[in-house]
């Protein structure tokens, strides 16, 4: 399989503050889900921001489909087929759900395609259809998350960066999200996934990377990582407490 996205030896940080990423390298191939796990503050979200152009690295390269895209704007990267779902809540709060979802296809000119996608996401997330005209900021936490995911599905990208897509979702919706990720993989999309629901994510991912202190600590086939007892204690939590 061919490499679609790679971060090579990236160093990055915010403002004049100390480095957050200290020589991070990650590679994602087409049709592959790479899962980043790691403690809070390890730099997972930062890595995704560098990949999508929201943050310019201080050194190192970002390569997208063989092209060096370091420092390009998110709009350009979007044009090259890269989508990014942010962590936390990033709906446009004072716009309706409809406007939010439509904005997901801001760069899509083809109305028919757009409408078809809208029908699809409405089916996937009933709440999106139900609350089509409501102000997005007034939805519950989990509902907003669904709107966000729906927004991201409006495009048909080649690479998707997902930052904790299941956070705050109930089990049913979590399942929908994971199913969608699986679907993407099967259609050849490269997925870079950050999840705190680590065991579950590693179960479905192809490659797992444990990030700590801005570097990849351990990486390897996802299932192997999930089984590693040392990692379990340190990063993945003990077995369900009882």
């Amino acid at each position, binding site marked *: 399989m061919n490499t679609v996205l790679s971060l090579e030896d990236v160093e990055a940080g915010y403002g004049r503050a100390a480095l957050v990423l200290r020589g991070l390298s990650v590679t994602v191939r087409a049709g592959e889900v790479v899962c980043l796990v790691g*403690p*809070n503050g390890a730099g997972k979200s930062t890595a995704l921001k560098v990949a999508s152009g929201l943050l310019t690295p201080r050194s190192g390269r970002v390569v997208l489909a063989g092209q060096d895209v370091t420092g390009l704007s998110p709009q350009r990267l979007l044009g090259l087929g890269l989508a990014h779902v942010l962590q936390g809540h990033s709906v446009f709060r004072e716009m309706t759900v409809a406007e939010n979802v439509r904005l997901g296809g801001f760069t899509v000119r083809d109305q028919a395609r757009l409408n078809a996608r809208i029908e699809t996401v409405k089916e996937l997330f009933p709440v999106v259809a139900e609350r089509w005209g409501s102000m997005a900021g007034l939805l519950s936490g989990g*509902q907003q998350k669904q709107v966000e995911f729906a927004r991201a599905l409006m495009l048909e990208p080649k690479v998707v960066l997902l930052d904790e897509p299941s956070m*705050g*979702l*109930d089990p049913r*919706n979590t*399942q929908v999200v994971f199913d969608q990720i699986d679907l993407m993989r099967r259609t050849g999309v490269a997925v870079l996934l950050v999840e*705190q629901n*680590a065991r579950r994510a590693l179960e479905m991912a192809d490659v797992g990377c444990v990030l700590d202190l801005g570097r990849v600590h351990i990486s390897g086939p996802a299932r192997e990582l999930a089984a590693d007892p040392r990692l379990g204690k340190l990063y993945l939590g003990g077995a369900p407490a009882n």
Partner: protein
Amino acid sequence: MTSLRTEGLSKSFGGVLAVDGATVELLEGKINGLIGPNGSGKTTFFNLITGMIKPDAGRVLYRDRDITRHSPHRIAHAGIGRTFQLCRVFPRLTVLENMLVAVRRTRLRELLAGLRDKGEVERARHWLRRMGIEHLEDAEARDLSYGQQKLLELAAALMAEPELVLLDEPAGGVNPALIDRIVSLVRDLNAEGRTFLVVEHNMDMVMGMCDHVIVFDRGAPIAAGPPSVIRDDPRVLEAYLGV
């Protein structure tokens, strides 16, 4: 024995019935869990209990005292503490300052007393130590990682010495290793006599930790009982677990 009871609590926003005649009882001294699909009104229910929003109808009774429509700080003084679904700390205050904001009583003398009152600072450090973030006491809260902020938020809530603690998705976005830590903390605190109400989507956590679980759907409880019973309740399976 009941710690907190709501009777026919209702709230609608525009056309949306967020909480719809919820009558709920929390068991004193237990860890109560509250689960329900997205948008079923859990957070709104929290906001109603803590006075952040005013109900359209119904009552909230805490230890048999009517606290409906009390302002949030009075409810806090009555002994109910909470955390928020999206973690909220005071970003530009240091960790220690974050802790010292909490007030249990508003006696003038105490308010004017020095901030760095020895007893209070000791108490704050005690809680930070229990959360394992005492080494961060001089850091500004915005510099903490998400998980650390979650812990700080919990510590600050506990600083006000609440008897009933409401946690809104304490595990959301938190590293699994830390979740373990939060679970054991909640257990310890519960063993000391504090009552908890925990909203969570992490089923393992809820089922493993809670003594009593309430299930919400469309703004009202559809089932309540011990985890073992709830786990197999067909209504719950249908409404929530979606399988």
